């Protein structure tokens, strides 16, 4: 759910709720707010009611969801990472061969970057939503990874020691965030604590550095590479990169050529191509097109894009989308 119901902008702390007692309302609310479609709902033995609450700021929100009926559908997470656990009821996500059932009180991470199906019944759930860019930045600092998408292994169950640490941290974070509005510095600190706890608890993959970039003499080049990965979705150029790391355009060109065997412009294009590949792998071919993903990543000349893509990945982008 990318939308917390919060109208406020930026880093403003907000506490919001949406609730009601009509099934039609609930279906519209969850579809609209979860970027979902074709939700089906039904009543159960309980009197129907739903409630969705959210507290926090743009980087992290602590949420609760109650739905006293049955609901199933598919959702496409966008620009966020989510941990959730049931405090009542039952449910499962990623239905099919990789299905993950929720055990009461045991946190699970939502599948990342792909549309997935779910079913829940008479449930109460707590969720922690992290803004993708925020968690990726914390991962880069905490793990020395390149800023970029994190792939969580949602079917891997964390071990008991990790879960104990998660519980301790998230209980403390909840005390700070849910009780009353924390000071901005405290809010930033608990957001970071929770983000590190998520990274330490749930199995995931990030992108590491080329070993050549770890040499102290290549510190500037490493900065340039980090800058490119962190800003690949923006309209950056080689000149922007050079300026960001305080090198001349020619100096940057030489460093890329000598150490990485490429040019800054080609490197930017390669990083964007990786993002396209990752998105195509996870998107639904019935809903998305190669052209829209390519354009989103700055590839306006589609036949040239398809050629570069096929050369790098050995298949046509539409074949990746259909996989």
């Amino acid at each position: 759910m990318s939308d917390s119901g919060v109208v406020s902008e930026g880093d403003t702390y907000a506490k919001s709720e949406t609730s009601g007692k009509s099934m039609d309302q609930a279906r519209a609310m969850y579809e609209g707010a979860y970027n979902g479609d074709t939700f089906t709902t039904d009543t159960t033995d309980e009197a129907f009611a739903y409630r969705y609450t959210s507290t926090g700021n743009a980087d992290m929100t602590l949420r609760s969801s109650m739905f006293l009926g049955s609901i199933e559908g598919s959702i496409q997470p966008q620009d966020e990472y989510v941990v959730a656990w049931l405090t009542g009821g039952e449910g499962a996500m990623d239905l099919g061969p990789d299905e993950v059932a929720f055990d009461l009180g045991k946190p699970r991470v939502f599948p990342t970057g792909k549309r997935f199906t779910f079913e829940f019944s008479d449930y109460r759930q707590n969720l922690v939503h992290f803004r993708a860019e925020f968690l990726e930045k914390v991962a880069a600092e905490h793990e020395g990874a390149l800023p970029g998408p994190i792939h969580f292994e949602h079917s891997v169950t964390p071990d008991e020691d990790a879960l104990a640490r998660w519980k301790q941290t998230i209980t403390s974070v909840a005390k700070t965030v849910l009780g009353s509005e924390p000071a901005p510095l405290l809010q930033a600190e608990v957001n970071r604590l929770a983000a590190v706890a998520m990274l330490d608890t749930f199995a995931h993959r990030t992108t590491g550095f080329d070993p050549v970039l770890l040499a102290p003499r290549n510190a500037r080049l490493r900065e340039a590479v980090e800058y490119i990965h962190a800003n690949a979705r923006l309209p950056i150029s080689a000149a922007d990169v050079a300026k960001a790391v305080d090198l001349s355009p020619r100096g940057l060109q030489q460093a890329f050529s000598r150490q990485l065997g490429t040019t800054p412009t080609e490197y930017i294009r390669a990083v964007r191509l990786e993002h396209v590949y990752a998105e195509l792998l996870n998107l639904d071919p019935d809903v998305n097109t190669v052209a829209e993903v390519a354009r989103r990543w700055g590839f306006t000349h589609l036949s040239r894009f398809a050629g570069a893509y096929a050369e790098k990945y050995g298949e046509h982008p539409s074949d990746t989308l259909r996989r």
Partner: protein
Amino acid sequence: MPRHPSQPHQLPAPAEGAGTMLTDDWADFYDAIPDDLVFECTADTRAGREGVCVFQNRVELDSPTSEHPSVLELEKITGWAIIPGDDGTAEVAVCGDQERRARIAAGFAGALTVALNEVLPEKQLTHLSD
């Protein structure tokens, strides 16, 4: 006075030996849902409360610029409309003796439309007069 006065809440201390199971329900940090509530979508920020509550006999609109909600009885409402914004929000306009407005996140406009159609059928306006 706020409609649902916020009360300071305390999370219970974890029970000894509770293990790794997470049992707190974060909804407990919010007030109970009123019996006559049909739909609520509100947000509290430092600037104030913003949003809309639909009850069985009235609609309440909150805006950060006003300390108290605007309360409109259903029988005096002549029409309503939801106007999509271009910043991820939508505005609900309710017309009675005068027009009142409130903002909500765009993702909740669909649910609010359903709720207002439940209590104010056939009063949805396709356009608003100036």
